[in-house]
């Protein structure tokens, strides 16, 4: 049962084939059998999960048939949860219990979903391999010597290994889509502003967006129906009415125009991954779509612009961690300056400090125009490239990542790590929706297919992904994990 999609589980719960308590116990057992190997969870909420499951079964007995009622999920440890620790993968917050639930958590709670625990992640979501976590790296269920991708690596590994039915994540430069690709699951980043950032610990506020990591595009639609929506507490959350995303995924693809960005098939892309993507495109053509070559001429500058914008915003956001109001405080500070400096230096890991330094430098007097303003102008050019492309195509398709999951510890150079997100970052800079879905295996490791849509074209992106999954079964492929 635990390998089923959330959509299938919803049916099984509805028909009475299984209860939420039984299902929750099955996942908790799986977690206790495999989490030692994978390190996907930072916190496991056994007691409260069973309590929520009992409540869900009671609600169902009283006639409630909410679609996610009783379905066990995991939240990335970046979402604030009342009564459970929210660490953000950092020593800085390793003992922090938020005084409130994040919007996303509120919504899933109200829908009756069961929270199994909080998943591991790169520290403050800064990383593409989940190796920067204070709680140690997550391991990829397909090969435990390899990384799961990051920063939502714990959520991706947990879904891939059936430690939960579905999970939440956040994506600032690829942090949902790249781990989804590496772990062979479906990961969706909605348009900027589609999901409220209330209670989601801030990394780069103009880029951060929450979204689902799950077992199918249909499940992503199901989760988006709960997650999306206007929320006055996040002033950048779109006031646009949400759609019924489940209702939007039933359209055939006849006449769909797919843009193939030449820049996503250039130097650096592994030949094997390219084969999987080309095969997928042939499948889309069989489904009635046409494929057109397009250009995103400024894509090669996206990583450069991102590594100004994201660190600049991070340096401002992370200035709140001062060892005074909450979070880590150093021992025996000699004066206030020492308290600030040592609390921050001991509380933050290397990568986080590096980005704070870069961001502070880019914003400092004398460099603002050369770095920050320049990056914002490049951001405009990148957005214009997409606007032009969407004048002639409906969706843009390419690989999610240049290759499959790499081995733990193999990328020590930060710049090499940053270039991992070469196909995903521009989508965040432009605020567009993007999904990664499995496109088959390369030497036993999953490759991800990236589908990008225009602003607020969530339904279209999910529909294209769902139609592909109706015709193929790559999303059903599972890692052969052994319980030790």
């Amino acid at each position: 049962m635990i390998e089923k999609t959330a959509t299938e589980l919803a049916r099984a719960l509805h028909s009475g084939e299984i209860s939420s308590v039984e299902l929750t116990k099955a996942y908790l057992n799986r977690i206790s059998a495999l989490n030692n190997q994978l390190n996907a969870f930072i916190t496991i909420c056994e007691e409260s999960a069973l309590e929520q499951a009992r409540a869900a079964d009671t609600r169902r007995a009283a006639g409630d048939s909410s679609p996610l009622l009783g379905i066990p999920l995991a939240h990335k440890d970046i979402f604030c949860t009342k009564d459970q620790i929210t660490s953000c993968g950092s020593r800085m917050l390793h003992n922090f219990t938020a005084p409130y639930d994040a919007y996303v958590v509120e919504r899933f709670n109200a829908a009756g979903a069961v929270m199994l625990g909080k998943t591991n992640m790169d520290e403050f979501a800064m990383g593409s391999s989940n190796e920067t976590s204070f709680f140690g790296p997550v391991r990829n269920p397909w090969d435990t010597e390899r990384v799961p991708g990051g920063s939502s690596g714990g959520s991706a590994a947990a879904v891939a290994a059936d430690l939960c039915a579905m999970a939440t994540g956040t994506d600032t430069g690829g942090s949902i889509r790249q781990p989804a690709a590496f772990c062979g699951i479906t990961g969706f980043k909605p348009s900027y502003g589609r999901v409220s950032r209330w209670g989601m610990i801030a990394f780069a506020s103009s880029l951060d967006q929450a979204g689902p990591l799950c077992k199918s595009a249909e499940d992503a639609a199901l989760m988006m129906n709960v997650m999306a929506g206007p929320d006055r507490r996040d002033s950048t959350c779109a006031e646009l009415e949400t759609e019924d995303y489940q209702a939007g995924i039933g359209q055939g693809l006849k006449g769909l125009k797919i843009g193939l960005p030449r820049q996503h098939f250039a130097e650096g892309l592994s030949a094997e991954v390219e084969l999987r993507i080309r095969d997928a495109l042939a499948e889309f053509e069989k489904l009635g779509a046409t494929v057109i070559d397009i250009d995103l001429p400024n894509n090669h500058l996206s990583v450069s612009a991102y590594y100004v914008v994201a660190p600049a915003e991070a340096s401002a956001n992370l200035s709140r961690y001062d060892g005074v109001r909450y979070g880590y405080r150093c021992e025996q500070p000699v004066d206030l300056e020492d308290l600030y400096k040592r609390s921050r230096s001991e509380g933050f890991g290397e990568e986080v400090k590096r980005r704070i330094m870069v961001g502070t430098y880019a914003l400092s007097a004398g460099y603002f125009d050369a770095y920050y303003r320049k990056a914002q102008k490049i951001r405009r050019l990148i957005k214009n490239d997409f606007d032009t492309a969407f004048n002639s195509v409906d969706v843009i398709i390419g690989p999610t990542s240049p290759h499959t999951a790499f081995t733990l510890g193999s990328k020590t150079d930060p710049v090499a790590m940053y270039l991992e997100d070469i196909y995903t970052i521009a989508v965040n800079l432009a605020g567009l929706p993007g999904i990664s879905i499995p496109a088959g295996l390369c030497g036993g490791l999953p490759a991800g297919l990236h589908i990008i849509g225009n602003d607020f074209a969530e339904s279209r992106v999910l529909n294209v992904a769902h139609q592909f999954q109706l015709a193929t079964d790559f999303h059903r492929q599972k890692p052969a994990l052994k319980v030790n």
Partner: protein
Amino acid sequence: MAFDRLEVEKVAQLARLHISDAEAQEVTSRINDILDLIDRMQSVDTENVEPLAYPRDVRQRLRPDEITETDRREELQRLAPAVESGLFLVPKVLD
């Protein structure tokens, strides 16, 4: 734009971070690598390009100036490392 040891100290001070002598060399060289990556932007002429701060040009929403938050001081201060009589404790600032 070379980012040297002196610059590292200046920026670390602005960011309230402590970089030890042992770390300084590696930090300097890593940040220089990142700045090289960033400097690729300079190859494009952006003279007449309007900067983009947010994915879409949103206007800040206004709301009525009403009290919406309740007093949760006690609850929130329980999260602090050191508190006394409703105040956050820090090392002595003034003699």
